[in-house]
């Protein structure tokens, strides 16, 4: 970006020419990559976790003597607001020295920003936003997504829960794009699978008190309370269910699959809560263990949260691409377009013609003794423990 005058540039060029002789033989070219996520505000925990994970990918790559380039991460805060998102997206996209981007947890921000990436030919991969339209709502070849959409997640969730024998649901969702999207797709798949929705409550994402909704839910006596939203609200609803003596099964979405959900609710109340997350469980994959260890070793103050592994995988994908085709946006876009069967810490990645990762497997989780455990490995699957109402 040429912010400063042309003469300044030539002056710099001149001085660089003078010092060129001093270059070490093994000095690598610098390449910039970027990260965008919500680093302030209500969902900043996830954003900071994502940023740390992306940062980790860059650090590890820079520590690798075989890497061709030295990478620099430019991380930006979208505040989870579309207008700010468009601003930072423009800033990053317009900076030609940035080759690739790992961006967006908030779908509304991603929706506003994709046009800009297309306009500036900046290849990017979404690391957390789950709204299908981010990839399917356009034909931009620059846009990719390593995580699955809420469609896959709810498809699996609806099937799984009806298979467990549950019949009736009360849905509570927040009124953001995230919660409303989940509500829409889960309702759709649940009806297909024969489940019945007794009531559907939309609540603002900053609501504290759910006793009114839950009292009404209690009267309807559903088998399951489905919550479409993020950890903070999920914690409140689970805690308040207890207050009102609601014994129904609590079912969440990917947004609550975090350790902070269990910390917030406490081990007792979180026991038996189920949720669903795209991708294979991190610790099951060969690289996953490595990620978890390295993340701990890097000494980040904050946890990586549910989507950290995706940010790590997406960043690695982009770094691999740059290593392969060089620091060139168009070539990187093409490289990403051809990704098929790429091994990552969240499982195999294959992009379809919309840049959506198709093999984003959905993993079912249940809380057992204060930990998220893959359903198949849990004592619930073996029948040793039972979900609520079974």
């Amino acid at each position: 970006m040429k912010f400063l005058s042309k003469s300044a540039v030539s002056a710099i060029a001149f001085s660089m020419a003078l010092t060129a002789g001093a270059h070490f033989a093994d000095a690598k070219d610098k390449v910039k990559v970027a990260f965008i996520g919500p680093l302030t505000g209500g969902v900043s925990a996830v954003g900071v976790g994502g940023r740390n994970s992306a940062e980790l990918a860059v650090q590890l790559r820079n520590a690798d003597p075989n890497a061709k380039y030295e990478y620099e991460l430019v991380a930006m805060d979208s505040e989870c607001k579309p207008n700010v998102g468009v601003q930072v997206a423009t800033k990053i996209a317009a900076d030609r020295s940035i080759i690739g981007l790992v961006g967006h947890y908030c779908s509304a921000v991603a929706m506003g920003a994709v046009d800009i990436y297309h306009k500036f030919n900046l290849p990017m991969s979404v690391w957390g936003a789950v709204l299908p339209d981010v990839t399917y709502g356009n034909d931009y070849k620059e846009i990719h997504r390593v995580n699955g959409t809420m469609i896959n997640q709810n498809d699996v969730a609806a099937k799984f829960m009806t298979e467990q024998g549950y019949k009736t649901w009360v849905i509570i969702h927040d009124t953001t794009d995230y919660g409303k999207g989940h509500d829409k797709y889960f309702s759709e798949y649940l009806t297909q699978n024969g489940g019945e929705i007794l009531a559907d409550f939309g609540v603002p994402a900053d609501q504290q008190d759910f006793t009114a909704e839950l009292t009404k839910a209690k009267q309807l006596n559903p088998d399951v309370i489905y919550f479409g939203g993020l950890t903070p609200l999920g914690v409140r609803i689970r805690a308040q269910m207890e207050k009102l003596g609601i014994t129904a099964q609590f079912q969440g979405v990917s947004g609550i699959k975090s350790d902070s959900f269990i910390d917030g609710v406490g081990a007792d109340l979180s026991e038996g809560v189920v949720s669903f997350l795209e991708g294979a469980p991190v610790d099951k994959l060969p690289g996953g263990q490595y990620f978890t260890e390295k993340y701990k070793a890097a000494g980040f103050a904050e946890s990586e949260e549910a989507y950290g592994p995706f940010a790590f995988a997406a960043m690695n994908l982009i770094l691999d691409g740059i290593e392969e085709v060089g620091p060139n946006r168009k070539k990187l876009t093409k490289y990403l377009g051809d990704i098929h069967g790429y091994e990552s810490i969240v499982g195999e990645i294959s992009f379809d013609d919309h840049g959506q990762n198709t093999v984003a497997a959905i993993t079912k989780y249940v809380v057992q003794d204060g930990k998220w455990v893959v359903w198949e490995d849990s004592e619930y699957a073996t029948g040793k423990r039972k979900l609520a109402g079974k």
Partner: protein
Amino acid sequence: MDVGLLGQFVVNGMMLGMMYALVAVGFTLFFGVLDVIKFSHGDVLMVGTFAGFSTYLGMTAIGIDNAFIQLVGVLVIAVGSMAILGAIIARYLVLPLKSAPPLNTLLVTLMLGTVLREAIRLFYPDGSNPKHFPSLLPTESWSLGSFTLRADSVILLIGGLLVIIGVNVLINRTRLGLAIRAVAQDEETAKCMGINFKMIVLLTFALGSGVAAFAGVMNGLYYNEINFGMGLLLGVIGFSAAIVGGLGNIYGAILGGFLFAGLQTLGAVALPFASAYKDVFAFAVVIAIIAWRPTGLIAEKTSERV
């Protein structure tokens, strides 16, 4: 709707209303003595709750596990530290701006709210995630049909009521209260009568902030969950409640608090359209009430001389 369910809604609504009322009382006190709105009130509540939470963690760490002692410790530390914080805010942010336009105070305290919120988010260990607040009260419950009453809810309701009564007695029956009322009536006259104006303002802010901290701990005990953003909406609602009730009047604040809780509950359960509109409904009613009673339900006494 059966009676048990109705009872459940009433109890829930009262709980919510009590918390709003406690926040609104603070707004009304500050406005009374200084004609200012201290918008960081909700965030002071949040900081108070975190102070209480830390006390609990600290006491557990040193091996004090008697729930009652813990509760007392949590309350004392939370209320005490917020009273000090409230007085500091009054001394260094509110009083210096006394002669500036009133909107300035509002903005400064709003910014202070942001500072408090961000500070907890960034500097409290894992502060950006919700925390599990312990149940320190007995959790026995009685069920009657669809009506469940828990012992902790009852204790909290009574506790809240006692605090409100206590504040009321303090304002109306004590020398300190007399001084606060005198300052609220007319600052100049109060000064002439030998009342230490500054001290009264600081004490009032300490009182209001202490009440907010109590409401925060109550919030934590009731919902068993606290987070850095909990004060923001609570502050806005408390402010609206104080306004709807009529600023400068404790009964107005209580009325406003319960009214707002009632509207939200009503909006969530009884509206013919989707419950997601309940806040739209509650705020629309607030606007309508203010249009109808421009100085609040219990009108503020205006003594403007022409």
